């Protein structure tokens, strides 16, 4: 991990499913809402979906205080790109690229970029606000679900 707070955030993960199945899970509206927990995802280029950290509002489909994500690229079968921003602030970008690594295994590579558009203090506070919502609502739910399952 980089010490530079404005550097890209990168994560890789390998899994036991072939590329075409991974693409469907990554981008199909039924699946995206399950692994990503977003609202109004249509799977259409140019459409906007929303990340709502407050579970009460998410349950009601309310996007107040949500992060906006515009679908920028849906290049089947391996490249999904969307923006990630709070209205009125610069747009960061999330790219997820898939790679067939053989034996019906797939590698997913995530890059979250665009932090150099912000003065360092803005980034910190932007994320602090988001983190407060996500930390208190999303992560405990994920943990509970994982442990129950």
């Amino acid at each position, binding site marked *: 991990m980089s010490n530079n707070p404005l550097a890209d*955030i990168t*994560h890789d993960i390998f899994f036991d499913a072939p590329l075409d199945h991974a693409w469907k*899970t990554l981008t199909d509206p039924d699946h995206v809402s399950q692994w990503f927990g977003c609202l109004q995802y249509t799977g259409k280029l140019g459409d906007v979906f929303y990340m709502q950290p407050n579970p009460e509002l998410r349950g009601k489909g309310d996007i107040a205080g949500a992060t906006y994500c515009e679908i920028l690229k849906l290049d089947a079968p391996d490249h999904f790109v969307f923006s990630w921003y709070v209205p009125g*602030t610069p747009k960061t970008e999330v790219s997820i690229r898939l790679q067939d690594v053989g034996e019906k295994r797939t590698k997913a590579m995530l890059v979250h970029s665009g932090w150099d558009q912000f*003065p360092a*203090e803005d980034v910190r*506070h932007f*994320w602090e606000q988001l*983190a407060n919502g996500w930390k208190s609502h999303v992560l405990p739910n994920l943990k509970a679900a994982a442990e129950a399952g």
Partner: protein
Amino acid sequence: MIAGKQSAYEAIAHPVRRDILKTLQNGPSPVHRLTEQYSISQQAVSKHLRILNQCGLTRNDRRGQENIYYLNAAPLREVRDWLDDFWTDKLTSFKSLAEETYNEQ
């Protein structure tokens, strides 16, 4: 949603407040010097500073006649750590769902 969380977004969105934050990155500044930079009233600048303080973006110290504002700096590291956890969790959910649905076929 708590009002404070919303207002931090508003704080970043406003051009004058963004500019004040940039100025304060160069070091603390008394209110009168910040006011000199803008073609708006001291009252308006004070209002912006009050909002920045309320959002926790800045702090101020009164030193005699001077009212000095500075950035409320905390480690950026924490934010990076949080984001790393967030994306790790999301990708782990993606992996689990892809593997489960593939095995069910």
